[in-house]
């Protein structure tokens, strides 16, 4: 209180040693604000330059053929990567169909049913460890479990690898989403005679839904761009997949393959594939956000 009083006195007195201190302080304040603003702008530079680069190098080849045709053979021009787009969609889709229910239901168990039990603590710990595991290990795991036993590279194996990759992200973000639901809502529901299931289904999940979906989208965005887990599992294919049980093309592996060959057309196509991949993930994100924000 004393310092405030003396400052206000300075305001009326005009000059004093205190006043010069205040001037210095407000200068420091402005300087720090300036640094913060500059640095925030700098963080946007990588994203903007990536998008700029993708548009510049990827746009020339973008056309309907990209979505409908098969990849060209080495050194040839024309073609597209419709099979890779389909493969990525299928594998991310199946991976999500496995990991989303498993992750969300586990999160419900560890947060709503038995938060302090040994099992819950173990699940939480394992999920945290799993997030730290390099994605290539997920590929090796799916290779051992699916490819070795079925004897073929397949979309199933790729989906499995992506599912393992997505599971901890979904589980942990979903747990955070459930933790974010006010306990007053649960109390109100129990007070009205709701069972635990009714409380979760009618009150907790609807409230946590947008946050859960954000977590799921994060997992999808990451899985869609992963190359390492797919090289060992889905491999690649120049052709349209006839079933899920054969080597399957994906955008990320196509980008990896085509960007390392010495043919300009293929390299240009890798850029276009990158653009398509980023566009897909971004569109899915925006779609999810608008749908869920409208809901609230």
């Amino acid at each position, binding site marked *: 209180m004393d310092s405030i009083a003396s400052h206000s006195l300075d305001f009326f007195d005009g000059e004093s040693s205190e006043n010069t201190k205040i001037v210095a302080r407000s200068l420091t304040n402005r300087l720090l604000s300036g640094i913060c603003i500059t640095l925030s702008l700098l963080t946007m530079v990588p994203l903007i330059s990536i998008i700029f680069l993708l548009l510049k190098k990827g746009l020339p080849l973008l056309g309907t053929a990209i979505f409908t045709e098969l990849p060209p053979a080495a050194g040839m021009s024309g073609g597209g990567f419709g099979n890779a787009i389909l493969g990525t969609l299928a594998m991310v889709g199946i991976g999500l169909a496995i990991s989303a229910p498993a992750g969300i239901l586990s999160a419900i168990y560890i947060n709503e049913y038995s938060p302090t039990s040994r099992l819950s603590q173990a699940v939480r710990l394992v999920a945290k460890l799993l997030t730290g595991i390099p994605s290539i290990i997920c590929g090796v795991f799916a290779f051992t479990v699916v490819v070795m036993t079925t004897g073929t590279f397949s979309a199933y194996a790729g989906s499995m690898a992506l599912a393992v990759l997505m599971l901890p992200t979904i589980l942990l973000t979903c747990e955070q989403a459930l933790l974010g639901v006010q306990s007053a809502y649960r109390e109100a*529901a129990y007070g009205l*005679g709701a069972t635990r299931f009714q409380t979760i289904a009618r009150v907790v999940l609807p409230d946590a839904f947008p946050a859960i979906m954000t977590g799921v989208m994060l997992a999808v965005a990451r899985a869609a761009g992963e190359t390492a887990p797919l090289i060992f599992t889905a491999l690649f294919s120049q052709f349209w997949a006839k079933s899920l049980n054969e080597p399957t093309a994906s955008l990320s592996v196509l980008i990896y393959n085509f960007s390392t060959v010495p043919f300009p057309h293929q390299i240009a196509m890798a850029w276009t594939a990158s653009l398509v991949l980023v566009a897909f993930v971004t569109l899915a994100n925006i779609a999810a956000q608008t749908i869920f924000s409208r809901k609230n």
Partner: protein
Amino acid sequence: MQISNEAPAKNTAEDRNPIGRPDFISVKDFNFFYGKKQALHEINMDIPERQVTALIGPSGCGKSTLLRNFNRMNELIDGVHHTGDIRILGKSIFDKGVEVISLRRSIGMVFQKSNPFPKSIYENVVFALRISGISKKSDLDECVERSLRGAALWNEVKDRLHESALGLSGGQMQRLCIARAIANRPKVLLMDEPCSALDPIATVKVEELIRELKQQFTIVIVTHNMQQATRCSDNTAFFYLGKLVEYADTQKIFSNPSEKQTEDYITGRFG
């Protein structure tokens, strides 16, 4: 506390509901423990039908714990246990045959912080019906109007029943929670400091409502505000350190308490 300067509403004998069971809720030799810590000691009290019974006392005295035992909300906490019994209409609420879900459905509860669900006003009110499997529109509509009228909120919200409940003011939210609590036509209404987060005007409205509601419900209210207890309760129980120190007619407690501790508390000497 401007509110305390207002003339307290009279809670005279003629205001009271004459007919009614004197032991609508009956607490017998009740002890309650959080783990090893004993929160309630040998509580014995009868709560009369269709009257307002206030539980007062300093923080941590066990009044909320007792309130939350009436609908067994304390069982949501790990490691609690009790001895003794609580009977409602002569029937033990702890009987093996009693489903805690049906007990809670027949007892309404209003919490300290108003907690409407992030749903529409309409859906908040009909929540208790929906979880009982009632989905006929005419039943739900009837319930919404009856409950909101009962909570003196109908005229304020009838044109925006399908808007989010979170857009209401604090006092309206708390009255919505009361509407939600009475939607299932419970016999008992439990209120855990229902006005502590409300401004004086909203408090007056809720207190008026409490006096209305006792025509239909047996009301138990926990309050920190002693003026509130004098304004809207018929009986007052004073708790201290987990024990029921004194339980009598509200007017007697506040004008002529028999216990020294009660007098010290209501005159503000401690607590």
